[in-house]
């Protein structure tokens, strides 16, 4: 029991399991997406800034070069008037974006134009991109030089602006991911809940089953997912089987009650008669009859207990190798002595035929078959007992010349408390003999069947597996 409990403790429901898996997958996906987006955004932002720096510097250089095209073509130094005082301002129409700082310098005449915030310390940077710390501020600078016109244009931007740019991009691209995560998580929970609805319905249908009166589940297999269909069909079949077993069990109990009540009633009536009787002989007679009833009941109870012990759920009986021929001969000899008006004919019992069996139970089996055959035999009738071997099976055959069993009753003869109407001679059993025969055969791994020989009468066949040494 203990491992079951600890196992239960760590078992998580299917819902929780699926949801956990889905959430884990979603989480992983989200983390990958997030980191990917973040790095892309950073790259894009820096590329974007570099592009802007480059464009600005090129634009600026182009602007000043075109001012004196004639001179440029003559490969002379451009005669651009120094205009140190030119201060450019860019209207801040770009919203959050901070404008660039730039300057254009003529190597001959000095600064042609500059934005006021351009860091002077950056003036010695070489062409291309460069990162510089100027007065505790990180700058990114792009320098472009035109050697022929001896012009240098520089564009610079504070690195913090680049970060802001990245942050802005991040906000635009990655923020949907933040609220998508809970939405997807909720959708995952919902879809698991919806997807497992048939399972919950099945669970409910099983939960409402009355264990004492199981009935087929009230679920149409066509209405459930295909994965659950075999489960429902199997469960239905199981319920049907349990129902049959319960019905048989109840019929058995009712029949046992019925069979026990009559002798019990007789015993009670006789004892009451004895108690009230003044006549000694009558009293003695009544007590004798009560005793007879008690004997009858104890025999019945004995057989009921035997049947209970032979139940497939009970522990198997002790087995040993037995010679069936020897066993049959012993029992027939006993029966012959007490039934002189029946002729017994034996066949095949001289050959040793070993089965793995319980001597007491097999004794009961053969004796019950013989008792049954004798009960339905007319005086001077014949009973055939034969032993044969078929593959790895031993067959015991008991054939009587009685009235036979109608076809429709043939599969009922092994039922407990089945009484045959043809038994009109007053010799009546209690209906357990053949049930015990079948139970014993089953307990030995064999089976019992009844057939109707062509020449009339009834033939019982018992199949028992041979002991391994004989096979």
């Amino acid at each position, binding site marked *: 029991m203990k491992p079951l409990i600890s196992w239960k403790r760590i078992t998580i429901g299917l819902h929780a399991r699926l949801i956990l898996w889905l959430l884990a997958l979603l989480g992983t996906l989200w983390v990958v997406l997030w980191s990917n987006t973040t790095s892309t955004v950073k790259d894009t932002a820096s590329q974007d800034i570099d592009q802007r720096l480059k464009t600005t510097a090129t634009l600026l250089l182009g602007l000043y070069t075109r001012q004196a095209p004639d001179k440029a073509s003559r490969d002379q130094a451009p005669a651009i008037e120094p205009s140190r005082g030119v201060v450019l301002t860019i209207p801040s129409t770009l919203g959050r974006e901070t404008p660039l700082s730039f300057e254009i310098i003529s190597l001959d005449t000095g600064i042609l134009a500059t934005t006021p915030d351009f860091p002077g310390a950056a003036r010695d940077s070489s062409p291309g991109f460069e990162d510089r710390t100027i007065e505790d501020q990180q700058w990114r600078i792009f320098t472009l030089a035109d050697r022929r016109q001896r012009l240098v244009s520089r564009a610079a931007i504070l690195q913090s602006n680049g970060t802001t740019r990245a942050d802005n991009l991040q906000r635009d691209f990655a923020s949907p991911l933040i609220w998508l995560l809970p939405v997807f998580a909720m959708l995952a929970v919902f879809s698991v809940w919806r997807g497992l609805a048939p399972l919950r319905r099945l669970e409910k249908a099983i939960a409402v089953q009355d264990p004492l009166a199981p009935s087929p589940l009230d679920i149409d297999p066509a209405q459930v997912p295909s994965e659950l269909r075999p489960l429902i069909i199997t469960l239905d079949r199981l319920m049907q089987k349990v129902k049959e077993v319960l019905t048989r069990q109840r019929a058995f109990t*009712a029949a046992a*009650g*019925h*069979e026990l*009540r*009559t*002798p*019990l*009633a*007789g*015993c*009670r*009536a*006789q004892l*009451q*008669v004895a108690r*009230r*009787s003044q006549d000694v002989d*009558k009293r003695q007679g*009544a007590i004798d*009859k*009560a005793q*007879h*009833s008690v004997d009858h009941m104890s025999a019945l109870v004995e057989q009921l207990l035997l049947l209970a012990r032979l139940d497939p759920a009970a522990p198997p009986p002790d087995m040993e190798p037995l010679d069936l021929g020897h066993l049959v001969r012993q029992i027939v000899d006993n029966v012959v002595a007490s039934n002189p008006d029946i002729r017994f004919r034996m066949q095949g019992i001289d050959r040793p035929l070993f089965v793995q069996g319980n001597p007491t139970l097999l004794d009961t089996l053969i004796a019950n078959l013989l008792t049954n055959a004798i009960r339905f035999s007319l005086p001077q009738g014949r009973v055939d007992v034969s032993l044969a071997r078929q593959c790895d099976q031993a067959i015991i055959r008991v054939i009587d010349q009685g009235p036979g069993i109608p076809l429709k009753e043939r599969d009922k003869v092994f039922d407990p408390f089945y009484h045959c109407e043809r038994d*009109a001679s007053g010799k009546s059993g209690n209906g357990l003999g053949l049930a015990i025969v079948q139970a014993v055969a089953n307990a030995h791994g064999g089976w019992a069947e009844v057939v109707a020989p062509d020449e009339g009468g009834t033939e019982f066949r018992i199949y028992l597996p041979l002991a391994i040494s004989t096979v």
Partner: protein
Amino acid sequence: MRILVVEDDDILGDGLCEGLRQDGHTVDWLTDGRVAEQALEADTFDTIVLDLSLPGRSGLDILASWRRSQHLTPVLVLTAREGTRDCIAALDLGADDYVVKPVDLAELEARLRALLRRATGHADNRLSCGTLTLDRADHMVWCADEVVDLSAYEFVVLEALLERPGRVVSREQLESRLYGWGDGPESNSLHVLIHKLRSHIGASRIETVRGLGYRIVS
């Protein structure tokens, strides 16, 4: 009273018959369903105890057949089967009472007395005519408040006469009530019993109606 017991089990049937006889009743016993079905054609009984599982014909079939033939004798059904289905079926087919085995003899007898009481329209176990009173349950007879000591046979005859005061009860009816199908009585034994009864309760109380039988008058 005269009781028919239909029960196929030897020991129970014997016990019931013997027990009811000890209570002073005349009991006849049948074990076969087919015979029982015909039993009411030739004989009359006061009450019947009928087992349901019988060889030949089932108790329910027999009951249905009796009721179809307008036999109104009270029937107490005796069965070993559990459950109310059989009980309802039997009562609907015309049974008057239902007892599940095993049954107590005293209870069975009391139930039969009750059935008889109901069938004959009496309120209790007492029958009376003038100053003469008979108690069926206690087997006591009083004549003008004096207890009269009667033998079992005398009691049966007086009981039969008191069931229909003033009306004639035939010799055959009295004899079947006394002996059932059992030991055949000598031809004059009823005569002797009537004579003894008259000496106990007064000669004028029992009148002989020649060729028909006897009747009791106040």
